[in-house]
């Protein structure tokens, strides 16, 4: 059974098909990359999976169960975690609190009103431990908005990991980072537990080929092809529509 599956997933904005009959499978423990030129509909695809957007037609299955009609929070409860291409953080809160909020929601504490959050020392320690593993524990008490951009990208990742997801969708985790800093992000992704199924959107082909054991190419909302990194690298059509761009650039 796939960790995540989409069947004939479509999304139309008027006459424009941003997702066009996407059949997609993410296997448990996969390191799967989603690539494609700008505007191919990669982020839209993620938003459909997480429920931020409702599909026009088609089905989404998480661990074999149909979640197409479920709201975002119900999908998260079933183990779906994501990061955002553009930082989507609690900017006015401390780094520790950013992760702590996610951990509390995971534990279903969000409706608890008359007990102190800080009484859950175990969850605070866990949140802190997560920051340590991403090497941002020194900034635990700093406000997110005071952090340099690179560290904010790590907080983005830390929040998603705080949910202990079984399926993790990474939308350009290194977006906007200089190459010297992308390494930190990718080392972190590589060190994640093997049982998490990861779908990653990334533009840097070198990183994609290093990380992924499976690649899907999306063009104009439709799957152009799927295969191993070697198959993708040697495919003529992929070179034309996508990799070719780099030769001209």
């Amino acid at each position: 059974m796939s960790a995540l599956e989409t069947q004939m997933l479509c999304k139309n904005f008027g006459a424009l098909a941003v997702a066009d009959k996407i059949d997609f499978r993410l296997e448990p423990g996969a390191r799967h990359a989603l690539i494609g030129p700008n505007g191919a509909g990669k982020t839209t695809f993620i938003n459909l999976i997480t429920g931020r957007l409702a599909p026009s037609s088609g089905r989404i299955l998480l661990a074999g169960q149909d979640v197409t009609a479920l709201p975002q929070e119900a999908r998260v409860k079933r183990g779906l975690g994501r990061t955002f291409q553009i930082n989507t953080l609690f900017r006015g809160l401390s780094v520790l609190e950013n992760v702590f909020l996610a951990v509390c929601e995971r534990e279903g504490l969000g409706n608890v009103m008359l007990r102190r959050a800080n009484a859950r020392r175990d969850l605070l320690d866990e949140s802190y431990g997560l920051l340590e593993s991403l090497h941002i524990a020194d900034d635990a008490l700093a406000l997110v908005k005071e952090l340099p951009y690179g560290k904010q990208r790590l907080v983005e990742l830390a929040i998603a990991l705080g949910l202990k997801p079984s399926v993790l969708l990474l939308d350009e985790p290194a977006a906007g980072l200089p190459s010297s800093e992308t390494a930190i992000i990718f080392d972190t992704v590589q060190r994640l537990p093997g049982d998490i199924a990861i779908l990653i959107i990334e533009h840097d082909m070198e990183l994609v080929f290093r990380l992924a054991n499976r690649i899907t190419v999306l063009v104009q909302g439709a799957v152009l092809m799927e295969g191993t990194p070697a198959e993708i690298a040697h495919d003529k059509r992929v070179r034309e529509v996508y990799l070719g761009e780099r030769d001209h650039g």
Partner: protein
Amino acid sequence: MFRWFNSDKGSAVERFVQRDALKPIELLPWILAIAAYYVFPSYLPLGSQILLTILFAISLDLALGYAGIITLGHAAFFGAGAYAAGLYALHVTGEPLSGLVVAGLAGGILGFLSGLVILRTSGLTLIMLTLAVLLLVQEFANRARPITGGADGLSGISMKPIFGQFRFDLFGHTAYWYCLIVLFFVWLFALLLVRSPFGRALTGVRENVTRMHAIGAPVRRRLVTVYTISAVLAGIAGGLLAQTSQFVGLATLGFERSGEIVIMLVLGGIGRIYGAFVGVVIFMIAQDTFAKADPAFWSFWVGLMLVLIVLFARGGALGVVDQALRWVRKVRR
């Protein structure tokens, strides 16, 4: 960067936890309030007004400061509570505590029902809708003359002694203590609430709704919940006004009351509970001072003060204090 003080787990988490510990200065408002009782015995009715306005501001802070629900219609719940308490005293019994419960229920029911509808929206639409709810309730109170007394309001309210013991006196002694004790319990409740996981999650909603969805929080349900709680407290504040002034008029549902309470909270600093205390007191003192110094244009000066605070001191009066303390610490190091 050398940051020895939070380089190990114990101290960073410890410092985080310590932030929520009750500090001695948090008892200051209560000491001042008790002192005021003895120092200004002739100002007690004004004192009661200040106390119940602080309660109203705390209720607004939960919705606006913590959850980020921007509202200009909070007087709807205050007024609903005031009318409910007034009608209850007139037609059922003058017993004050059950009257407060009724006032809270009235505010809460209105908050829950309107929240279900309007909290689907955000931003400017939401502000307009909060205003619309206020105007609807206001107009209802105006038209339902047989019940509410219309423009004449409800008068002839007489209250029984609290616990059958403490009679409301002409000089407002009992009323002052009554408001102070109710405010104290509301303050305790608010502190507990904002430090609970629920309260923490509210700040998450305020800071980033998209992310809150993405970590699995049922955002709208949380918003409706806090809006309802906030409306209950606003209703209690209104109930206190009805019981202590023994009159309820359309002004309890006025737009001025809605707007002023927002101004007071912003002056004090939003999202910190104590902004309610500081803001209400600053506003009332400023109003009094400006009115004496310049009876014709006093509201201009209040407005100017607000503009300056919004431009130069975003966190309100308490925000300025925070910044000063941070600056002092930096210089010392």
